[in-house]
């Protein structure tokens, strides 16, 4: 039996269906990437998997001995956390709460689990540092360790590399790959970075226009219509890069390829052609909005 299976799943807000016809299965050890542009319903589906939003039709079934509430979750950072006085150890330990029932305090088992996960993510030496003083990449590692404490099987990552610089982004992806292959934890990642998704994931779920455009293995995805519609947007980047090579702008603050969202890639190519990188980034922001 599959670890998680969704049958004809649909979600609605105030009676308006925002996502429907979702059919997919996640097996133990999979690395599923949920792709889609902003507004495609990625966050809604994620809330549905976490049990924070009730589906308007269909259902999510957990197989094996996985139960709802046993998914480790890496959320996007909230403004509250930016100046939160808490040590790394406290944050990681708080992930262990879910398995404790009504027991009020952490026992030896929880402390060991937290220590093990901090060790695995190489943040043991940060344990007594304050969360708000860490860099973006370190903070993500801390939250990832917390997510690992909350699960034995599955983690769900919501745009884990958002706001990280290119080098840190690559490290983060490698770390997630290691969690999947070495620790045997099923990974579900919500992203709009199609490049990374096809590089690392084993399965792809592509959402668009309030429904499921593609679900299958990563290999099949490369031959799918959904993938090629994304890659059309890629042409825009290609042209933009060519233009850049011809007239290099003085401020070379161009966003590296990985940081460019498909939404931006879909920006009309001719306009981008004659603009400086800053302007291109500006359009990116506008498109995102």
């Amino acid at each position, binding site marked *: 039996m599959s670890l998680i299976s969704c049958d004809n799943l649909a979600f609605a807000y105030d009676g308006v269906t925002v996502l429907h016809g979702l059919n997919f299965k996640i097996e133990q050890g999979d690395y599923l990437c949920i792709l889609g542009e902003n507004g495609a319903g990625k966050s809604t589906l994620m809330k549905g998997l*976490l*049990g*924070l939003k009730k589906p308007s039709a269909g259902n999510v079934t957990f197989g094996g001995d996985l139960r709802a*509430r046993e*998914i*480790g*979750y890496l*959320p996007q950072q*909230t403004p*509250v*956390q930016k*100046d*939160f*006085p*808490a*040590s790394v150890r*406290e*944050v990681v*330990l*708080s*992930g262990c*709460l*879910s398995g404790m029932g009504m027991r*009020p*305090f*952490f026992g030896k088992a929880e402390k060991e689990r937290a220590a093990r996960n901090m060790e695995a993510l190489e943040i043991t030496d940060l344990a*007594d*540092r*304050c969360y708000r*003083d860490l860099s973006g990449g370190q903070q993500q590692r801390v939250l990832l360790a*917390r*997510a690992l404490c*909350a699960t034995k099987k599955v983690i769900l990552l919501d745009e884990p590399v958002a706001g990280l610089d290119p080098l840190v982004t690559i490290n983060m992806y490698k770390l997630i790959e290691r969690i999947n292959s070495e620790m045997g934890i099923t990974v579900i990642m919500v992203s709009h970075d199609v490049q990374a998704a096809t590089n690392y994931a084993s399965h792809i779920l592509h959402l668009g226009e309030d429904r499921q455009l593609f679900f299958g293995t990563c290999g099949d995805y490369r031959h799918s219509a959904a993938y090629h519609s994304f890659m059309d947007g890629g042409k825009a980047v290609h042209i933009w890069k060519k233009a850049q090579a011809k007239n290099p702008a003085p401020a070379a603050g161009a966003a590296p390829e990985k940081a460019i969202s498909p939404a931006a890639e879909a920006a009309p190519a001719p306009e981008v052609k004659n603009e400086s990188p800053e302007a291109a980034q500006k359009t990116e922001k506008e498109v995102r909005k």
Partner: protein
Amino acid sequence: MFHLILEMFTYPFMVRALCMGVLVALCSALLGVTLVLKRYSMIGDGLSHVGFGALAIATAMNAAPLAVAIPVVIAASFLLLRLSESSKIKGDAAIALISTGSLAVGVMVVSMTTGMNTDVYNYLFGSILSMSEGDVVLTGVVSAVILALFVFFYNRIFAVTFDETFARATGLNARLYNMVIAVLTALIIVVGMRMMGSLLISSLVVFPAVTSMRTCITFRSVMICSAIVSTVCLVTGLVISYLYAAPTGASIVLCNIAAFFLFTALQKLRERLQSSEKSL
């Protein structure tokens, strides 16, 4: 001066004030850390104004003040929490509406019945003379409940404060803990209002938390530090108000302000030391 302080504790009302004050300071400091971090500081302020309205109506009806104020303020705290969660009405505007609204109701009721007398003045600015034995017992019970709940739910309160979505996703009943926090805040505000006055009580909630966040880097140390700061400021304020016949509530708040600047200076100093160490 020392014998003056000793003499101060020969008055039973001063001893009452000290016991009550320390308990209120301790509880409000603990709750304050969560409230400040959850961006709910203004809820405390709003609730104290609701408390004033409720006390004024209770006086007009000749009812026991706390018996009326406690349920009304708890109801208001639920309402404010609900409003701040809903995105349709902006939370801070809703708090301003409710707090000024109940202040206006209170003032209206007062002017139609007793007029601006000492009782009303005490509700607004607090008085240590207006507290009875019964108040002390009530404060004791409420603080014991708050402290017990706080210790028992400490780890869960941390989880819900730091990341509510994660807490909910991993099976914590975040709404329940929010409600517990709201009820406890309402209780401590009503109880502390007698001493601090409805206009000043929210400072006991906000100041110690903000002060200790200047220097402390772990959640636990912020909690402990803010409890200590709050208690020390309260006792100092009480002594100052006795020695110089100053209003109690205002003296305590001034001590809190002093502590805030002291901690800010300490933090600045530490930053400077660290940066000079780095440059060496």
